[in-house]
C-alpha cells in the first residue's frame, strides 16, 4: 500500500473514532431523547472528548500513523485539532446554560445549584484551557521544555480522568453492560497508546543502547554529536529524518529531544546529529564526555529525498537547517548518486557557516553546486548577500526547475519567503518539502 493511501486510510479511521461515541450512545437500548439542543450539546461534548482522547494517539509516535505524514505534520495536527476540540467542549455547556435550569443557576452564580457533574465538567474544561495556554505561550510564560512536558502529560491525564468522571456523574449515556464495556475498551486503547511512548518504547530503547563516540564543535554554536551502536546493528533511517535522543539518563526519563541525523543513511551503526545551542538542554551539550550512554527513539519524519524521487534536487537552507541536508548529501555520495544538486545555504556571517569542509569534500564527490548567502559578508566577499530573495533564486535555480524536488529547512520567515517565491515561479506545491524544527 502506498504511503498516500495509508495516510488517507488513517484519516478515515480518525474520523470514525471521533464520531464513534455518538454511535455507542444510541446502541442497544438508548435512553429517551431530551430535545434537539440538549442532545446536540451532549453530542458535541462526546465528540470533543473523543478528539482529546485521540490526542494521546497522535503523540504516541506510533510508526504506522506518523510514517505517511511525517511526525512534524502529525504534531501540527495535534496542536490545531486541540482548538477544534476546545471549541466543541466550550459550546457544550454554553448550550446547557441557555436551555436548562442548571445553566440558569450558573448564570446567577449560585454555587449550591451546580451539581457535582457540573463541577467536574467545568474543571475538565479549565484543564483543557490550561493545557492550550501553557503550550501556545510556553516560551512567553518562561516554562522550560522539560517542565512543560511533565505538565502537559499531567494535564492531559487530568482532563481525561475529570471528563470520564463527569460522564459517569451525568449518568445518562453510560447505562447498560454493552455501553460500559465499550467505554472501558476505548479508555484502555488510549492508555495503551500513552504506555507505548512512556513504557514500551523506552523499554525497547534500553535494549539498544548507544555510546557517545565524539562531540565535534562546528561554527555557528553548532555541535556534531556522533553515536556508536553498542552491541546491536544500529538504526535504519532515511536521510533527512530525525530521532529523539536521551543522553546520560534512563530512556524512561523526560529529558529527550528531537534532532536531525547529519550522517549517511548507509551507516546505521555510527550516526551523527547536528545540534545548535539555543538554550535549555542544547546549551549544555558540549559538556558530555565521550563514552556517555545514550538512547535513540526513531527514526521519524518525511523530509527525505528517498520519498520524493526526481531528476535533480534543490536544497534551500538557513543555519542549523543544513543538518538533514548533510545527511541526504552524504547518503547520495555513498551511493554514487550523480544527479544534479543545488544547495543555497544562508547564514548570518562566514564564521557561522557549519560543515564548510565536509560540504567542500561532498562537492567533489557529487554533482553539487553550493551557493552561500551571507547577511553580513566579509569585505572581500563576491558571493550572494542578504536574505534568500526571489532574485537570488532566479539567478541560481537550475534548468528544468519544474521537475526538481525542493527541500527547505531553516528559520520560519526564510521558509515562508522561499515557499512563496517558489510558488510564484510556478513550482508545483507537491515538489516543495519543508521541515520545521520548532514543532515541539
Amino acid at each position, binding site marked *: 500500500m502506498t504511503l498516500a493511501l495509508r495516510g488517507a486510510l488513517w484519516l478515515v479511521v480518525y474520523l470514525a473514532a471521533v464520531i464513534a461515541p455518538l454511535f455507542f450512545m444510541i446502541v442497544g437500548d438508548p435512553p429517551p431523547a431530551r430535545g434537539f439542543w440538549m*442532545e446536540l450539546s451532549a453530542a458535541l461534548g462526546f465528540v470533543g472528548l473523543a478528539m482529546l482522547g485521540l490526542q494521546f494517539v497522535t503523540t504516541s509516535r506510533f510508526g504506522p500513523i506518523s510514517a505517511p505524514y511525517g511526525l512534524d*505534520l502529525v504534531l501540527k495536527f495535534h496542536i490545531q485539532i486541540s482548538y477544534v476540540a476546545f471549541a*466543541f467542549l466550550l459550546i457544550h455547556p454554553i448550550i446547557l446554560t441557555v436551555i436548562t435550569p442548571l445553566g440558569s443557576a450558573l448564570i446567577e452564580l449560585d454555587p449550591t445549584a451546580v451539581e457535582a457533574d457540573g463541577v467536574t465538567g467545568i474543571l475538565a474544561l479549565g484543564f483543557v484551557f490550561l493545557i492550550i495556554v501553557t503550550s501556545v505561550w510556553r516560551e512567553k510564560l518562561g516554562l522550560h521544555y522539560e517542565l512543560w512536558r511533565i505538565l502537559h502529560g499531567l494535564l492531559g491525564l487530568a482532563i481525561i480522568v475529570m471528563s470520564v468522571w463527569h460522564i459517569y456523574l451525568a449518568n445518562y449515556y453510560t447505562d447498560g453492560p454493552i455501553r460500559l464495556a465499550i467505554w472501558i475498551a476505548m479508555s484502555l486503547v488510549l492508555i495503551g497508546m500513552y504506555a507505548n511512548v512512556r513504557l514500551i518504547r523506552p523499554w525497547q530503547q534500553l535494549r539498544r543502547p548507544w555510546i557517545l563516540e565524539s562531540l565535534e564543535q562546528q561554527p555557528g554554536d553548532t555541535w556534531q554529536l556522533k553515536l556508536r551502536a553498542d552491541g546491536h546493528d544500529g538504526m535504519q533511517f532515511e536521510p533527512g529524518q530525525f530521532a529523539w535522543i536521551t543522553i546520560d539518563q534512563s530512556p524512561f526519563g523526560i529529558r529527550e529531544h528531537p534532532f536531525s541525523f547529519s550522517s549517511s543513511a548507509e551507516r546505521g551503526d555510527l550516526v551523527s546529529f547536528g545540534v545548535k545551542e539555543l538554550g535549555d538542554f542544547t546549551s549544555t551539550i558540549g559538556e558530555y564526555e565521550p563514552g556517555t550512554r545514550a538512547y535513540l527513539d526513531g527514526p521519524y519524519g518525511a523530509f527525505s529525498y528517498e520519498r520524493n524521487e526526481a531528476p535533480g534536487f534543490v536544497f534551500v537552507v538557513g543555519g542549523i537547517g543544513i543538518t538533514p541536508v548533510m545527511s541526504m548529501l552524504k547518503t547520495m555520495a555513498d551511493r554514487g548518486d550523480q544527479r544534479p544538486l543545488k544547495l543555497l545555504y544562508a547564514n548570518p556571517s562566514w564564521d557561522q557557516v557549519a560543515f564548510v569542509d565536509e560540504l567542500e569534500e561532498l562537492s567533489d564527490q557529487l554533482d553539487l553546486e553550493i551557493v552561500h548567502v551571507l547577511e553580513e559578508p566579509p569585505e572581500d566577499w563576491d558571493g550572494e548577500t542578504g536574505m534568500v530573495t526571489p532574485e537570488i533564486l532566479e539567478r541560481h535555480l537550475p534548468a528544468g526547475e519544474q521537475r526538481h524536488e525542493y527541500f527547505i529547512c531553516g528559520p520560519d520567515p526564510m521558509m515562508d519567503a522561499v515557499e512563496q517565491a517558489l510558488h510564484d515561479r510556478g513550482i508545483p506545491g507537491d515538489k516543495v518539502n519543508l521541515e520545521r524544527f520548532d514543532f515541539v
Partner: protein
Amino acid sequence: MRHTMVTWLVVTTGVVAALAAVVFALLANAV
C-alpha cells in the same frame, strides 16, 4: 504546502464532526 494540508484536514475533521453531532441530535429525537 504540506502544512496547509494539515489545516485542511483539521477543518474537514471539525466540519464532519459537527455535522455528525447535528445528525445525532436529530436522529435521537426522531427515534
